[in-house]
């Protein structure tokens, strides 16, 4: 619990070299391009960069090109691809599963996003002056984020069990007859989303806490001098200055939300009768590519996921001007 050297600026922890020994220069080190230095480093850069470039090209860049190509092909049962033009995309456009998967992924993401206001409340409580045991609380709230999703999904299966789950027992106490959560369409998606929210809450709390600590106390003092009430201070100081952190958490949560797979797969299981109505985009991809072995069609799904995620992220960055305040 040595917090003394903790840099008050979030984001500086990783980037600040050798805390204490070298005070960070004001404008960083100027970037790689602006320093007067020897004109070349000989063959050294090749040694440094080649291994990474090799792996990146082999396992990432070339595969992206290949998937793009595959999305226009059909795969034979014994290997070999035939060019089929846009057929996969045409088929995809009329495939009801795609619509279901898009809607499910959006619903999941939306429910997980509801964790951000909750995280904001928790973060403000943790940052109250004189608050004690904060390290302990942080561990409690952060544990689900580091725990293996498949392993925690196992206990959530029990909690959500329709016949003997704790949740339905609790609901029964107030007279509600709960459904078989993980195998009823609709309810299953809610169950998966709740677990997703539980998993990602800690991350949002940590980022928002760092954001709160970045707000200079002088601003509150000035506001108080001007006679601002606690609520007014929250609304006019805390909220606007926290928007960059909220934006960051939102972007990350949405990107992760679109990658929903582990929790869904582990919580429901492949044999689940409700899986088709509950599947996410990534599950749809996995199912087509590796269970039904329709890799050309799956490649088209992958390209659609790329497009959707790209468009949503772009949209978020466009919208940030409307609500994010950069001091």
């Amino acid at each position, binding site marked *: 619990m040595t917090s003394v050297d903790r840099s008050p600026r979030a984001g500086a922890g990783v980037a600040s070299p050798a805390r204490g020994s070298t005070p960070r220069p004001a404008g960083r080190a100027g970037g790689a391009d602006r320093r007067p230095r020897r004109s070349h480093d000989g063959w050294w850069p090749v040694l*440094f960069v080649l291994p990474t470039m090799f792996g*990146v090209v082999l396992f990432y860049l070339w595969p992206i090109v290949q998937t793009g190509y595959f999305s226009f092909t059909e795969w034979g049962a014994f290997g070999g691809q035939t060019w089929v033009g846009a057929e996969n995309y045409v088929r995809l456009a009329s495939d009801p599963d795609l619509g279901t998967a898009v809607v499910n992924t959006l619903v999941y993401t939306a429910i997980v996003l509801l964790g951000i206001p909750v995280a904001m409340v928790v973060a403000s409580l943790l940052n109250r002056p004189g608050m004690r045991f904060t390290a302990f609380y*942080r561990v409690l709230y952060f544990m689900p984020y580091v725990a293996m999703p*498949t392993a925690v999904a196992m206990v959530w299966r029990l909690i959500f069990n329709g016949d003997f789950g704790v949740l339905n027992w609790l609901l029964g106490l107030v007279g509600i007859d709960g459904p078989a959560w993980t195998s009823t369409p609709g309810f299953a998606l809610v169950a998966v989303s709740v677990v997703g929210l539980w998993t990602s809450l800690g991350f949002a709390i940590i980022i928002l806490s760092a954001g709160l600590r970045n707000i200079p106390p002088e601003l509150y003092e000035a506001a108080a001098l001007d006679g601002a009430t606690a609520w007014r201070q929250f609304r006019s100081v805390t909220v606007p200055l926290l928007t960059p952190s909220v934006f960051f958490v939102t972007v990350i949560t949405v990107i992760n939300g679109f990658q929903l797979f582990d929790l869904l797969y582990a919580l429901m299981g492949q044999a689940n009768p409700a899986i088709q109505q509950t599947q996410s985009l990534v599950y749809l991809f996995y199912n087509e590519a590796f269970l039904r072995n329709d890799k050309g069609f799956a*490649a088209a799904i992958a390209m659609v996921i790329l497009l959707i995620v790209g468009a949503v992220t772009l949209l978020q960055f466009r919208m940030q001007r409307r609500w994010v305040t950069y001091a």
Partner: protein
Amino acid sequence: MPEATLTRAPAGAAPRRRGSRHGSNAWAHVLLATGGVVMVFPFVWQLLTSLSTNAQVMSVPPVFWPGELQWGNYAEVFSKLPFLQEFWVSVSITVVRTVGQLVLCSMAGYAFARMRFPLRGVLLALVLSILMVPSQVYLIPQYQIVNGLGWLNTVAGIAAPGVFSAFGTFLMMQFFKGVPDSLEEAARLDGANPFQVFWRVMLPLAGPSLGALTIITVLWSWNDLLWPLIVSTRAESMPLAAGIATFAGRTTTDYTVMMAASVLAMAPILLLFIVLQRRVIDGLAHSGLK
């Protein structure tokens, strides 16, 4: 626990806002503790059911304390699923990926940050462009490569693509960009070659960043499900994440063993987290991604 006061307001600042309302944190503790119980309940419940009998698990109303603790459930984990093999696969892929990323990402990150070479900008743009691409877009070709190499169901096959990381390269590059030039110049004047500068001067400074990269890679590698599920089909060559999911798919009623297996699978990471909590949280927060 001095952090609450130290991280905010420099010492000697005017009395804290709301400082007069002393002891008003009580209700904050009530709220945080209530939420904390909800957050931790699944873990506690998992531990309790892993020590119960199947009959107790399936009873209504639920049995909260199993009475006689069924440690035998944990013994059964080792006979009902190839736990040790799966554990070994998890450890192996985690070590291979982490060591690989630490070496490769710090070298590439260093070169991109502080060396000059032709096409530097283009290569960097290529590497960073991957960050924006969801993994589904490269999974099928990756599977083909691993399959072509005959690496299905091997540690090499599961670990290989994850040895390289655009994100890790970016993280290390950001760090090396912030190191003052003077350190490097001094070493160079002493006649050190670029590798010696990197190894003796720069890397020792990079401790916190290397730590963050280690945490991120270990977590992701230990918990990842989709890729291992694709390239391993035999239970004994899967890492734990895939092994547990597969076991759960086969047996739907062996709840207590399933819980014991999950507890064992999560335990190493959770213990590590509790021991290194501050470093883990800061590392993840500052790098922004899992």
